[in-house]
């Protein structure tokens, strides 16, 4: 019998400290995945957690993980050459193929940038296939910005705008040097020249950020069927059996985690990420 619950073990080849509580783990192998899919990461004794894939299929697997729960904190204590169990990839990702030839608006909040990194990598690999591409990224503070180095490189081929919620006077020098925007992501939306025709929007972040960003996009005249959001739930099995990630009868693990806002608005259980819209 094929026991799909048994993970395959990968070795951690590299660990990069993105922020105080977030690290990017590069594993020893590639995996065939599409942007927006996720893996179930297993650590014996601690359990399993669903983690977005941050790498493009051309790269070795990268997982950007914030240490907040049981498994992710245990993951945070691992070192190079330690092994982790992997199941997946699971789920349906961003409609990156449909977005070919179109303008793309990428909106990310906090760790929500992790599942969108492979989108940027895909666009980098096929830059000519996409029109205008804007990445709007909100982090809580300057020292919590992920992929700092890469974000700079990305400015060479897409528009990148970053905002922070606030910055402390008494923190590292980087904070004091923050010259960029301050405020929530929707502020960046107002400031940017958002293409309203032939467009797609991909969004991932905390529920409240997604809710207001979707609202703002709709107000601006963005077509609802072309706004896609990633709904994060605690998937336990990843295969549509256990029921934990259900929202309005859909399973985030197999029908999502990426959903079109148009679909999600028709569900009789409104996802918290879209509460109060229309």
């Amino acid at each position, binding site marked *: *019998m*094929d*026991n*799909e*619950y*048994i*993970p395959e*073990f990968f070795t951690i080849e590299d660990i990069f400290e993105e922020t105080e509580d977030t690290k990017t783990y590069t594993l020893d192998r590639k995996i065939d995945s599409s942007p927006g899919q996720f893996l179930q990461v*297993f650590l*014996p*004794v*601690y*359990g*399993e*957690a669903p983690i977005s894939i941050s790498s493009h299929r051309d790269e070795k697997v990268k997982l950007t993980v914030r240490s*907040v*729960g049981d498994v*992710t904190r245990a993951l945070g204590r691992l070192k190079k050459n330690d*092994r982790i169990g992997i199941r997946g990839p699971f789920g349906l990702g961003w409609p990156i193929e449909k977005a070919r030839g179109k303008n793309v608006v990428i909106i990310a909040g906090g760790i929500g940038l992790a599942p969108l990194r492979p989108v940027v990598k895909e666009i980098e690999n096929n830059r000519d296939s996409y029109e205008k591409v804007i990445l709007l990224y909100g982090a809580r503070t300057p020292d919590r910005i992920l992929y700092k180095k890469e974000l700079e490189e990305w400015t060479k081929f897409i528009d990148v705008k970053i905002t922070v919620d606030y910055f402390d006077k008494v923190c590292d020098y980087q904070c004091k040097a923050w010259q960029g925007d301050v405020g929530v992501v929707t502020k960046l939306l107002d400031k940017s020249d958002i293409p309203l025709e032939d467009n797609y929007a991909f969004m991932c972040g905390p*529920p409240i950020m997604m809710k207001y960003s979707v609202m703002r996009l709709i107000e601006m005249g963005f077509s609802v069927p072309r706004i896609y959001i990633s709904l*994060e*739930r*605690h998937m*336990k*099995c990843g*295969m*549509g*059996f*256990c*029921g*934990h990630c*259900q*929202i*309005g*009868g859909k399973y985030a693990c*197999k029908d999502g985690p990426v959903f079109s806002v148009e679909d999600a608005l028709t569900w*009789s*259980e409104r996802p*918290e990420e879209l509460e109060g819209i229309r």
Partner: protein
Amino acid sequence: MYIYTMPKNRINEFLELIKRDFRVYVPENDRFVEMEYGKHVSFGKAKTLHGIKDIVFPKKETLFGYDVKGNIEDKFVDERKAVVGVRVCDVRGLQGLDRYFISTVHEPFYWKARENLFIVGVTCEEATSSCFCTQFGGLDNSDIEYDVWLTRIEGEYLFEARSSRAKDIAETMKLEKAAVDKISLKQKLINKVESEMGWSKIDDKKIFESFKEKTSNSVWDELSDKCLACGKCNFICPTCHCFDVVEDVDFDGNGERVKVWDACHLWKFALVTGDHNFRGKRVARVKYRIYDKFYYPVLTYGSSACVGCGRCLDVCNVNIDLRYVLKSIAGGV
């Protein structure tokens, strides 16, 4: 389909024949237990309080084991089980579970258990006060899958053999073919039991449409004021299929990954890391469960996930009656 008659006193012979190939589960008091040698088997007149869900989908099941060094051990055991004395609602419940667990990807444990399952049904002779299967097809077994179906008629069993294995058993036992009047007596029995239920069917479409409209109805607030959200109805329901996956670890660090039943009524169900709860309010959980019986499955699979067994009412601490909920949503109360 072949229909035979089996004298009542040959039931043990029949069970022993099944036992050659299967672990046999039979009703005892309120639940199904493994048949003990020589013990008298009695089917009762109606459903058991506990169904057969835990025979194919155990409360707790090991997915795999591991040791401190990280070695994985697949602990799957291939078992052949037979359930004898199940009711139409039990089989409809299994078919409800099949929709969730056997689709494009198969839940490996359930799938194996289900493939190996031998089903012997019994026609109900009475309706309990909570029964309302007439809403979902009643006692007619022509649209469900089973191996043997027994109906007690005039001191004999009408023996319906649907699978080839069941036919083989009938041949081995040299059972006689049933006369036409016996078969018509079965229909008479069914009519009697169904009329006892006294449930006048609500049009399925009407139920669906009402659920579609009444997403923000006061009914949900009233219901969640009364409901304790204890999860008993989830666990007893033949089509509730949610489970959690947890670690069962000993002090040395050797352990197992196990799946255990979970319930969407429980507060913790939609809790995620960072103490965020997507269904923190009881009304959201109470409403969700009912929608996941009568609305979402209709959208996904074309029919509701309720079988009308009424077990949720049997176990409810505060006597919440789904029949009443249905009527208050779809009209009639």
